[in-house]
């Protein structure tokens, strides 16, 4: 009897233990679920905005939405309207609503030039009025590689057209290089004719040269007058030069007196330096480490140059 009573009490204890374990497991599961829900932002207060675009390219549900580089929300829905336009709805944290002004626009940007696309809300210049909830914002795409390629192509096409035009003009038989060469040839023939004319005109120059010589004679007589004037002024100039030379001589003599003392001063400075070094050597505690040298004794060497070995 006592054995049966004992068995019942053990079974009851086991049941209690199982119930406790199940209770704790259920609590843990609930806590985990709550954490996941909070992490997913299900209890977060959000506001939705939308924008319309021609294409949903690079836009997808769940794509992050940023303000000044900070993630503030995500794309909640991307849907196609009857007229072919795409409506994109974004969920933004209510905390960040204060940055979304009424004239804010949404830009589709890429991280770097070829990175993953993100939507960036760029607030407008007027920050006093905020956008209402569910407001429709303006949208634009930042220029990617395709846009750059288009821009380069747009720049290049006119240049290529110009090159084509220039080469066409150069190849033109009338106005291009062939025409120019023909003109040069014609010009050289004209030059030959001109030289022939020049030869005939040299004879005419002979007469003119006679007239020039007459004029040169007049000029020479004028030069004679000038030389006479110079001759009159030259003694003064020589006197002046003599004065300058005297001055130089005087300076040299003064230098002769002043320079040797300067050299002596230099020598004195060197002597002073030597004295300072010598004084430093005698100063305590340096003198403890510097001993006065003993008289030198050179090693004996009766054949300093090794001359004895071989007849020179």
């Amino acid at each position, binding site marked *: 009897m006592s054995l049966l009573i004992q068995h019942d009490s053990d079974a009851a204890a086991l049941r209690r233990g199982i119930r406790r374990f199940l209770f704790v497991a259920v609590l843990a599961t609930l806590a985990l679920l709550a954490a996941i829900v909070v992490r997913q932002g299900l209890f977060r207060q959000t506001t939705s905005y939308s924008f319309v675009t021609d294409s949903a390219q690079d836009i997808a549900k769940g794509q992050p939405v940023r303000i000044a580089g900070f993630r503030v929300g995500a794309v909640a829905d991307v849907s196609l309207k009857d007229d072919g336009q795409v409506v994109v709805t974004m969920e933004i944290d209510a905390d960040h609503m204060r940055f979304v002004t009424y004239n804010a626009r949404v830009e589709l940007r890429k991280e770097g030039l070829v990175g993953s696309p993100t939507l960036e809300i760029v607030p407008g210049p007027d920050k006093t009025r905020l956008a209402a909830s569910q407001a429709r914002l303006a949208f634009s795409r930042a220029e990617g590689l395709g846009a750059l390629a288009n821009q380069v192509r747009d720049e290049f096409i006119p240049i290529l057209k110009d090159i084509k035009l220039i080469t066409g003009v150069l190849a033109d038989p009338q106005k291009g290089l062939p025409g120019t060469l023909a003109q040069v040839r014609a010009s050289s023939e004209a030059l030959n004719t001109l030289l022939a004319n020049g030869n005939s005109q040299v004879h005419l120059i002979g007469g003119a040269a006679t007239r020039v010589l007459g004029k040169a004679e007049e000029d020479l007589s004028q030069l004679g007058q000038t030389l006479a004037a110079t001759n009159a002024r030259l003694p003064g100039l020589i006197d002046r030069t003599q004065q300058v030379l005297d001055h130089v001589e005087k300076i040299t003599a003064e230098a002769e007196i002043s320079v040797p003392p300067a050299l002596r001063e230099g020598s004195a400075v060197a002597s002073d330096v030597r004295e300072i070094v*010598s004084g430093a050597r*005698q100063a*305590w*505690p340096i*003198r*403890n*480490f510097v001993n*006065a*040298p*003993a*008289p*030198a*004794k*050179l*090693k*004996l*060497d*009766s*054949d*300093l*140059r*090794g*001359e*004895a*070995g*071989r007849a*020179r």
Partner: protein
Amino acid sequence: MRARILWVAALILAGCAAAPDSANAPTEPPRLKAALEAESDGAKRYGRGDYAAAARRFDEAARTYASIDDTPGAARNRLHQARSELAQGRAEAALLTLESAERGGDAGLVLDALLLKAQAQLALDRQAAAQQSLAAASGQCSAACPQAASLHLLQARAGLAANRAPDALAHAEAALKLLQGKDEAAETGNAWRLIAAARLAGGDAGGALPAAHAALEIDRRLALPEKIARDWLLIGDIRKKVGAGGTAAAYRRALDVANAAGLADLARIAARALAADAPVLQGGTP
């Protein structure tokens, strides 16, 4: 960092500990100290082979000693100066310097002066004068005088110059015996070189070669380019006499050493020897 601080502290303490003794120690007067420093500096330069600078410093030291009436100091430095001039190959200048040292008249240095004088005279090929100087030096040097080996070596040189090879060999060997066990490497090298030259002159070329190599070995150890080049010349001469191979190689070594050391005269001698040896080589002599 801590170790460095400890070192500095230890040095300061050592300085403090040494201060009282040195404070009481007598200090040399400045001019005497200057003379001693010039002399010491000259000796250092002489040791480094900078003979021109050494001669200048010894001259300065001699003048400073003379200015404080220290005749032995002045004479000693004149001898050092003469030795430096001889090492430069300026034997005439050395003789003039020795004259001024003799005017100082310090008896203790007379023997050294006579030996240097003989050396200069031998360098100038004044054999009679050298013999006189050596005779005077012999009178000053007893058997136990420290310069006995040098005296023998100079007598050997004089003998060799006068074509008295046996006499030269005897003196050189006597010098070598005196030099045994002494720290006189330069003189030992000189002795071996003289033995080699004397043996060569006496017709014993076979015995000359090892002696010349012994001299070369010592001169290499002392790193004396001029002597090394002359040793190689001597070795070349001996090999030529013996008829052994390698004569040109020896002369070439002499030429290379002389060129590298900037010894133009010696390089010319080596080049001449090499050129003279060339026909022999063409004739087929090994």
